[in-house]
């Protein structure tokens, strides 16, 4: 395959950029290649994200339509393909209203900052071998750190709007984010225990070397990370920060036009970031058991990313919105203990493996089966444990509202 590995080889876009940067380094000052690679990488990421946004937003609306037995957008362009473009033009041309008593600076800054964390996360995610903007050796920790600051622009939006619904939405979002951050970090810790590195490309390389994906070794952690990620990006089963039925539109109640559009864009970017992190850490990133030699790695990576995003869409179309106390209780009483037990077993397994110097081929399948059994057993056992002693939560027959002692309005005795 040597003859294909030239700069014009589309299977690896990195080659062309690499050749260009090498040429720059030969003919210019030392700092030029760094600057150029930063600029090229950022622009590429932005273009990729915006194109994905337009396509996925359309796909999501069509799929939601299908799930809900209706058509979805089908008027603008063939199969409604240009619907997202039309929506973007609509958002850009609508009036951006600033109400009278808002905190002007913070109000304007929040929609600008809201998409930044998701963009920054993509800097450490490898799209292909060597196709990464900054291969930090603390990549996993970096992702966690950036995830922890996503709450700040949302809080700024909610607080500066001078509207109680906005503030309620912002408080809910912040409370949710700091609760779900803990199981999220503990889920990622399992990956680091197994791979012994926090470098994203190192984690992908480990999965490639051992011919496995970490989803098999850490099924419980994937589930926990997926749920925590869904909460972090604020999508429908867990979007209590912008629950229409309770608090108008939450933290972006007062925003209109493109400023509202930026929150919408930020939400999708964060969704892509979560899907990309899961694809990299748990699904082997740009590798697919040898297929990456024939198909460009970034296509495999993107296929995994979009497939994971489909789960978010599916969840949105299927599950009803949770209540805030249920969501918080779920993080602290269910996900946190399970994540801790998962960490304990991951550490135990790696210790057994390293201390006895067992062969990876023999040990990893055993761990995979053991961890799957552990995950299913833990989920079932913990759910039963939490549900015990509250028979009124599991009624054997339908009961009248009066029997439960609730007040029925208009029928007070």
């Amino acid at each position, binding site marked *: 395959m040597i003859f294909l590995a030239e700069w014009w080889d589309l299977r690896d876009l990195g080659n062309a950029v690499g050749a260009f940067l090498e040429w720059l380094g030969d003919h210019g000052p030392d700092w030029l290649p760094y600057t150029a690679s930063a600029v090229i990488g950022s622009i590429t990421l932005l273009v990729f994200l915006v194109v994905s946004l337009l396509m996925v937003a359309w796909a999501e609306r069509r799929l939601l339509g299908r799930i809900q037995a209706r058509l979805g957008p089908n008027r603008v362009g063939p199969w409604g393909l240009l619907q997202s473009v039309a929506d973007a033009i609509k958002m850009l041309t609508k009036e951006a209203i600033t109400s009278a008593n808002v905190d002007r600076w913070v109000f304007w800054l929040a929609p600008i900052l809201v998409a930044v964390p998701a963009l920054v996360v993509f800097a450490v995610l490898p799209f292909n071998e060597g196709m990464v903007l900054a291969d930090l050796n603390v990549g996993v920790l970096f992702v966690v750190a950036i995830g922890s600051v996503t709450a*700040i622009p949302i*809080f700024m939006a909610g607080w500066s709007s001078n509207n109680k619904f906005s503030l309620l939405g912002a408080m809910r979002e912040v409370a949710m984010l700091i609760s779900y951050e803990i199981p999220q970090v503990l889920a990622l810790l399992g990956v680091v225990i197994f791979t012994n590195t926090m470098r994203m490309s190192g984690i992908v390389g480990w999965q490639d070397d051992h011919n496995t994906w970490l989803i098999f070794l850490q099924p419980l952690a994937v589930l926990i990370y997926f749920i925590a990620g869904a909460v972090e990006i604020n999508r429908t089963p867990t979007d209590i920060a912008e629950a229409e039925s309770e608090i108008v539109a939450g933290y972006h109640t007062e925003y209109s036009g493109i400023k509202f559009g930026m929150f919408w864009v930020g939400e999708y970017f964060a969704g892509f970031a979560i899907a990309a992190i899961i694809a990299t850490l748990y699904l082997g990133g740009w590798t697919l058991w040898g297929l990456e030699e024939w198909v460009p790695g970034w296509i495999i990576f993107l296929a995994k990313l979009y497939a994971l995003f489909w789960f978010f869409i599916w969840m949105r179309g299927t599950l009803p919105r949770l209540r805030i106390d249920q969501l918080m209780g779920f993080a602290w009483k269910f996900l946190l203990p399970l994540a801790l037990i998962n960490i304990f077993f991951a550490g135990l397994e790696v210790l057994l493996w390293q201390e006895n110097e067992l062969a990876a081929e023999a040990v990893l399948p055993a761990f995979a089966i053991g961890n799957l059994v552990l995950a299913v057993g833990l989920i079932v056992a913990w759910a039963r444990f939490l549900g015990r002693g509250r028979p009124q939560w599991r009624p054997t027959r339908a009961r009248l509202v009066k029997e439960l002692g609730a007040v029925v309005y208009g029928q007070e005795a």
Partner: protein
Amino acid sequence: MEDVGSIVAFWMLSVIAVAAALMVVAARNLIHAVLFLILSFIGVAGLYLTLSADFVAVTQILIYAGAISVLILFAILLTPRAARDNAETFLQVPGLVVAALVAVTMGAIVLVTDWNEATRGAFPETAEAIGEALLDKYVLPFEIASVVLLAAMVGAIVLVRED
């Protein structure tokens, strides 16, 4: 510190960190002060990066910009009438005294220190070394800190429990 990039980055980050820290003191609005504090934390994290202390830099963002500042925001929101005004305080004189003492100490250290450039070059990866130090040599302080934090958490829950 010989290459252009580090010097440009150092000055930009320093200006951001110091200017934001000044605005924390100058801002009348408490929420604005906290937002400037976050900006200052991020600037300091950038400075750690230029010192090739990547683990400390990321931890700075995770703990200070992500967790501590959110804690401060909550504290402000839960304090009546604090969110919209940075009111006068009777602690101005003690505050000034403490600030002056800190400034004198820092200034003395800056003047006394021999500012030679380190000759050993950039650090290798620090995360692994820090992890090993925490769980090997300094495992007792690490465990004690964990127990203290756990005790604080239990204490907080006991304080706010209604029964």
